[in-house]
């Protein structure tokens, strides 16, 4: 298997930073907005976004939570090994708020579909947006699109995109893995 780097650590940081400025353009001081990371991989991006927003805006209070979508997935009993659930932590009201859902990779749209379903169990938001670090183009199974995109990549279904985090893997990197012919 060979791997190509899609984002190196510097590009990674610049991309997260740009995404934050795009968020600020639409959400001002976040007084009417909340950010929710989809478990399991979206939570690292959400933490990074929060600290970057605080660096730019100062110590504004931005409600940030995590949402587990395991029980809302449409592939229950279709996988060889069942997925273990993760923690949901939403200790704020989403009713009438602008919700920004966050995940590291946007691929088929199935996670977002489940995420929307899971999120609605907490109330009726005013508006929902989706932010992703990597968008894999031309691979949607649902008519869904992210609103904020770090980097769009063309990839084959046999390829794999992996986001590595400094706190987990020692370096911030995004790699595209290709199975050798």
């Amino acid at each position, binding site marked *: 298997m060979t791997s190509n780097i899609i984002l190196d650590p510097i590009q990674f940081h610049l991309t997260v930073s740009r995404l934050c400025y795009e968020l600020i353009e639409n959400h001002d001081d976040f007084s009417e907005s909340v950010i929710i990371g989809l478990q399991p991989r979206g939570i690292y991006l959400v933490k990074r976004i929060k600290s970057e927003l605080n660096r730019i805006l100062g110590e504004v209070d931005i409600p940030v939570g995590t949402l587990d979508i395991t*029980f809302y997935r449409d592939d*229950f*009993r279709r996988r060889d*090994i*069942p997925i273990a659930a993760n*923690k*949901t932590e939403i200790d704020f009201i989403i009713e009438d708020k602008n919700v920004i859902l966050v995940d590291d990779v946007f691929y088929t749209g199935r996670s977002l579909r489940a995420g929307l*379903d899971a999120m609605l169990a*907490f*109330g009726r938001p005013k508006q929902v947006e989706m932010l992703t670090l990597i968008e894999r183009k031309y691979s949607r199974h649902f008519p869904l699109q992210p609103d904020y995109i770090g980097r769009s990549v063309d990839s084959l279904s046999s390829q794999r995109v992996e986001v590595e985090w400094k706190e987990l893997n020692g370096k911030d990197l995004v790699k595209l893995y290709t199975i050798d012919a």
Partner: protein
Amino acid sequence: MSELSVDHLLGIKQITKEDIELIFKTTDHFKDVINRPIKKVPSLRDITIANLFFENSTRTRISFELAEKRLSADIINFSASSSSVKKGETLIDTVNNILSMKVDMIVMRHPEPGAAVFLSKHINSRIINAGDGTHEHPTQALLDSYSIREKLGDVKGKKVLIVGDIIHSRVALSNIYALNMQGAKVCVCGPPTLIPKHIKELGVEVEYDLKKGLEWCDVAMMLRIQMERQNERLFPSLREYAMLYGLNKELLDSIKKEIIVMHPGPINRGVEITSDVVDSKHAIILDQVENGVAIRMAILYLLASKIERA
């Protein structure tokens, strides 16, 4: 590990410590779900479950039904008193008829010990034992351990006193298996006629003096005196039983430490436990009931995940 080692929940004896851990971990998530504004998840929306109650039940039946509904399963309820069982139909025939209507899982309570195990050998469906005679009541034991863990942090090393009608109690047997497996110390307490002769072989202590038992324990699990299973008179009178083995506030206050008091229900107030104890801060009886729904959701979810899609 994200999968149970078993295809049915027939008893605690058939499962492992890792299974219990997985069930508890999953329960944590479902407890979170049932405290949300919308308490329902779509996981089991293509699963049909039959609740077969060949014996009366309120709490367990409602708890299972609620757990199934919160998981979006389709359910059918069956009670023996209003069915063809009265006309002489056998258990296998009754269940096979229900299964031919495309039912995926069976939750069964039955007065005969071993009924769930028997059924699992003869029919092709997932079975959850909701109590089989005087044998096992695994979901009750799991929710009891979960409630202890929630209150005291861990089950390991805790001292649990099970008081009352041990000989007829499926709750006691399942709890002994579950608590031992998790490293708790278990002692049973009651009149000698209500304690099975060789119970020590299960790795438990026996104490005939309730006060001594209470002074030893961290958790007192009071069992119901089962009038429906007392064909022979095993103690002189309810009044005498209440005097010697009933838990009252005076006795609870006389011991020099804080213990938690549990009861699987239904309670005979004034017999095994007095009202002032039931309603005191020591009792976690209603927490047990709440946890029961989440535990049953976890078990249904984990067993359903092993059903192959058609």
